[in-house]
């Protein structure tokens, strides 16, 4: 569902941008900008042959595309559409993406250029903004694919774009640290937190759409793109549990048991990678808390996973007896606080916790203390939710709600 507040923000921003640019330089700019704004309904792009008389600047192109409304899609629709892939369907999908991606990329460019407290001027943030601009130009310079061959080249292009953006989270994290050094503002500030929420949510969407399209070229049995047609939370949880436990063994030499209860056989179409990411983060937290809280005892109380199958949604509860989260810290668990806060920005890119999901659509961004807020974004992406209840002195319960019907639209900003 489109986020009305986000759209209001965008429109407000664009108004202000327009006004600012107008005063920035003289009449010539004014004429060009008016032309660009008039062209909002039908944005022009540079012809590969270069046959465009007015030659609008990058910024105008970006603004033109950013003012378009992105079209949210539902999981169900993607799933049904991709069920029997054919070259024709792939072409249609490519054409839709070709229309949609520039709009989303352009919005990120605009957002990155207008961050509070001078965050936009931080070197790492500039790198990310240039990255998005570059990708945007690549997209609009590529003509609409009209046959199978062009579609393949298009797919290569978006694969390249995805790869280019692999390290964005770390770069932004670096940028935030740079800002902290510069003026002391950090992620506890609400406008920065807001920016991160929206930016990462949008990134989840863009990467998912790209991965989905690429994966349709490499069909796997039982999958539609990256959507597992019969995704079993129990299986995904078991995989994530094994990975989390092996990390625990590596660090601590021991690990609590993880028990699976409830509806083990439940299955429904869902994006396995997202689910895995969320389970992994929550289990990692639970294991660590349990081990540290019961350090001096012989046996660890197990971490329990309960899978509940509702009418429209599925709830997975991950319960641990790891001592709970102190009340004073409860409102901080959703902030993008880094565990690497003492590492100088230059070393942030190398910091990694390993063990992340390594599937075809893997997102190599593990670590940095982003686990909870990002997991919540993943949950919310298709209309779900992640909530955490703490019982101080005992343990924590995390509840993951996922819409199993797949009829909720992507969360767009």
């Amino acid at each position, binding site marked *: 569902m489109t986020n009305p507040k986000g759209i209001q923000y965008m429109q407000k921003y664009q108004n202000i941008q327009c006004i600012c640019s107008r005063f920035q330089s003289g009449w010539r700019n004014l004429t060009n900008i008016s032309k660009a704004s008039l062209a909002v309904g039908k944005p022009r792009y540079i012809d590969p042959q270069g046959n465009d008389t007015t030659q609008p600047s990058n910024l105008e192109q970006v603004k033109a595309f950013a003012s378009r409304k992105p079209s949210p899609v539902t999981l169900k629709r993607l799933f049904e559409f991709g069920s029997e892939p054919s070259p024709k369907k792939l072409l249609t999908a490519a054409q839709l993406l070709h229309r949609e991606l520039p709009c989303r990329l352009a919005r990120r460019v605009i957002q990155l250029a207008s961050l509070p407290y001078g965050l936009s001027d931080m070197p790492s943030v500039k790198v990310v903004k240039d990255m998005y601009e570059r990708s945007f130009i690549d997209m609009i310079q590529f003509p609409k694919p009209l046959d199978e061959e062009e579609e393949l080249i298009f797919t290569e292009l978006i694969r390249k774009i995805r790869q280019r953006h692999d390290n964005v989270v770390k770069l932004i994290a670096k940028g935030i640290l740079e800002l902290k050094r510069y003026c002391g503002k950090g992620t506890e500030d609400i406008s920065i937190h807001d920016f991160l929420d929206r930016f990462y949510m949008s990134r989840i969407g863009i990467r998912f759409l790209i991965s989905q399209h690429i994966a349709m070229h490499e069909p796997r049995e039982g999958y539609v793109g990256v959507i597992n047609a019969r995704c079993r939370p129990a299986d995904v949880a078991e995989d994530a549990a094994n990975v989390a436990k092996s990390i625990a063994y590596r660090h601590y030499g021991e690990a609590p048991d993880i028990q699976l209860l409830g509806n083990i056989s439940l299955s429904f179409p869902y994006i396995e990678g997202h689910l895995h990411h969320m389970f992994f983060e929550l289990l990692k937290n639970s294991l660590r808390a349990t081990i540290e809280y019961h350090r001096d005892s012989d046996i660890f109380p197990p971490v329990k996973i309960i899978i509940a199958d509702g009418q429209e949604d599925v*709830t997975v509860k991950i319960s641990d007896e790891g001592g709970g989260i102190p009340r004073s810290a409860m409102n901080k668990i959703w902030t993008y606080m880094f565990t690497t806060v003492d590492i100088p920005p230059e070393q942030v890119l190398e910091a990694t916790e390993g063990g992340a999901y390594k599937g075809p659509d893997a997102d190599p961004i593990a670590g940095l203390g982003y686990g909870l807020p990002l997991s919540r974004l993943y949950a919310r992406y298709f209309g779900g939710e992640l909530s955490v209840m703490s019982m101080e*002195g*005992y343990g924590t319960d995390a509840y993951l709600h996922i819409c199993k019907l797949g009829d909720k639209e992507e969360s767009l900003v």
Partner: protein
Amino acid sequence: MWSTRSSWKYIQWLSYRSLSYGTTDYLTVHDNAVARYAKKEPKKHTINQLIQFGKQLNEQKLIQSARFVHQELPVRLAHRIIDLRSLPYYVVCGPIKRIYDVYVEAFESVRNFRKIQDLQDEKEFTVLLKHLVDESANVVELLAHGLRLALLRASQREHLDLDSFVDQMLISRIGRRMIAEQHVMLHESRPGFVGVINTHCSPQQCLDIAYQECSRICFRQYGVQVPVQIRGSVSTIPYIPYHLHYILLELLKNSMRAVVERHLSQNHHKNGLLLSKDNMPPIEVLLTEGPKQVTIRISDQGGGIALDILSSIFRYGFSTVNRLREEEQGGGNLGGEWDRLVQRQSVDGPMAGLGFGLPLSKLYAQYFGGNLQLVSMDGYGTDVYVHLDRTGDVLEGVEI
């Protein structure tokens, strides 16, 4: 546009206000008094402050306490009277009008009580307080009925949201009754108690009492008791036992009913199924504490709450509007029977059927710095977390 009939009703409402006590110039005095008291802010206390005050009682302190209540009650009542006056007229006709009258009478009788100088004054004032507390015992029920009627009457165009009004009414009521009862109970001496506050209130004990009461009702209705497992232990806290009891009773009642009804619906095809304690998933209650809070988690496997109802469970009367229609049309349901059985002589009205139990429990929890959170796992069960402040240093009241 208003019809002639509704215009007439509005004029009636306006004149009701002015004809409260029959004297024509009473309106000016009366209104000025309300306005004057409403300008003041209520004076709030923490549990520890109340305990500290009432610990070593003497004549002087009793009189001081009476004077405080004498001054404070009208202030809090005045705020509510103003709120009631600003409601749309069609809301106030009926049960809500009755509440208005009760409050105005209470306001006047407390305000007009003579200045408290000695023990004799204090004694008579205490008698007045007791009377007022009894008089307003059914206000929650009236509020619920009035709200239901108002929602039925609200025109289609006008979206009537009275939740924050009801919130404010109930919060204020919790406070006023607390300070009135506190003063009255200062006359009693119960070991460990200061007024209505138990300085060493055991959540475990409250739980046991609530469980036994719920169990009895469950057995009477269904012929079976739902097993409850209680784990963990916490130290005692300074708290008002009635508040905790209300919350626990409400939550256990909900859980038990959900478990039994789910069990029945899952096995409805088996005729003559003997309902047994052994084949029902137990309700798990966990007691934990941190440095500043005690948390009680009540988990049931009663199937959870359907997604479309979930957003309404903390709203007032939402579910009961339909239930009223059903009952009017003679459509009884198991739930209705259950609700009637759970009715008790409670100052908060019949325990169930009003659609007030859960939001009111939340307000009780929040009143002295706690909270109540509910998570539903549709298809499995519900978890409710009750957090209670154990420091006793949180000011009374709830911000909404």
